[in-house]
């Protein structure tokens, strides 16, 4: 038994060398493994950073509006307060001023109106519903997006609007 344990011990000790080599090879020269891992597991950024999945895209010709899902994410259940992100991406160019009514919950009714001065990154919010609490910020975002196994740089102007969870 002691001999068997000894042989097993030495075997595992020797095995630790290729394990370490594999780990450093993946880290240094095999980023494809990381990409495949992320694609296979479906790992993605927390909506706190990404704004959550896009639920509606409105094409305006020279630019498009992307309305993200309302974010109330929690480990268990939902939070009482959250936000919705609305982003504008240039297809050709963004206009100097954007004035748009947004339906955040997808019920066909506008929930707020947002006016954006695109050059100065300044926004104004007009809530139409009591659960729209206010403007969190206006941001110029440059996000590297992994689509399948390829990268794309997503350049957008976005606002985040603070919300009270309408279902609570």
């Amino acid at each position, binding site marked *: 038994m002691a001999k068997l344990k000894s042989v097993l011990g030495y075997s595992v*000790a020797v095995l630790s060398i290729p394990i370490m080599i594999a*780990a450093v090879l993946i880290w240094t020269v095999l980023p494809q493994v990381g990409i495949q891992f992320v694609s296979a*597991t479906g790992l993605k950024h927390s909506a706190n950073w990404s704004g959550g999945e896009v639920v509606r895209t409105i094409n305006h010709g020279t630019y498009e509006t992307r309305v993200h899902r309302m974010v109330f994410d929690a480990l268990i259940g939902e939070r009482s307060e959250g936000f919705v992100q609305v982003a504008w991406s240039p297809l050709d160019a963004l206009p100097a001023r954007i004035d748009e009514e947004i339906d955040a919950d997808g019920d066909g009714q506008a929930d707020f109106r947002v006016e954006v001065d695109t050059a100065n990154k300044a926004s104004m919010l007009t809530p139409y519903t009591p659960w729209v609490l206010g403007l969190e910020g206006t941001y110029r975002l440059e996000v590297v997006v992994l689509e399948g196994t390829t990268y794309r740089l997503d350049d957008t102007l976005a606002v985040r609007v603070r919300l009270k969870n309408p279902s609570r």
Partner: protein
Amino acid sequence: MTAPARTQEGSSRMPIWKAVLLTLPVVPFASSHLMDELTSGEAQLITIIPTLLVWILLTVFFFLMLVTGKTYRYRSALFILVAFALPVYLIPQFFEAFGTNMLTEEMTLSARAKFCPLTMPTVLLPAILKRVVVFPGFVVEGALWFFLWLGASLAVGRGWCSWGCFYGGGDEFFSRLRKKPVIKHVDRKWRFLPFAILLAIVLLSAVTFHPIYCEWLCPFKVVSEFEAPTILRTQVSLGIFVSLFIGLVITLPLLTKKRIQCALFCPFGAMQSFFNKINIFEVRIDPAKCTQCKRCIRECPTFSLDEGSLESGKALMSCTKCGQCVDACPQGAISYHIKGTPIGISPNVARVLFLYPAYILLSVLGGHIVAYGLWRVLKLITTGSMI
């Protein structure tokens, strides 16, 4: 009666020819940065010189570890070098890309923060349960760190903290500056603090979906990147980072001669302690040789040996396998050991088998940082700018 020298019975010293042969497998890893540079097609003298220097340094130090039988002094020198090279390596990268190392909210929302292994305890639970990454860095980069961390943790356990961590050399440096400690007694109950912090940040990060340790507690934000102090929250957190850095990385290590940040605060280190339980390598004390002089207890920089260790012959689970006690024991009673094998039989084999994965980790991770850090310094000297 004088104590038998470590270099007599149970000697770790090795003939030069044998040390040369055993150094050869490490050469490719020590030179990987040089190979990258030479095959990049953009090799210049200013990049080849530092990578060549690092290659020579890493190879020579491994050879010296083998030939002298001493682990700690060579590991420690490299470990400290890595920690000092880190800000020189990292901060100019941020200035190059963004013009600052202070992350704005836009940069955070654009996921431009840099992943580091210390994020692991905060990201693992939400990643497993919800498949979301609660850190504003590039997810693929996080996945690559995950593989490196997992492989290293399986291969060397908490050895990560003395061979792989690019921050730990900071408090190790300050813990080595004084000959004698000013504060001689540190209550050993403090050893439980990192585990409490680990539990707290894992739960809080999972509940809030925010990397709590990175946002509030990481002292090493000071030598990397941090959120721009534009609002009260980020101003307070910057104050915490600076205070923790001065207290845990500089002052307390200087006063106690211990790696206080690593031993009594770092939650990542606490997590690594659990990997020591499954890792095949450990540090053992041979009761037949031990004279209970307790020098190892005094010398251990991470409070990983106590009276109980001398009785049981085992280091505590927080042992970072730094080699300090192994080198310091005048009886040669302490050695690297492979679990399941007899104590005191072929300690050199166990040591060399441990040194390979540990040194590969140090060479690839630390060598990369030192080589590019040196390149930045050379660039500063030759062009007047690091960027």
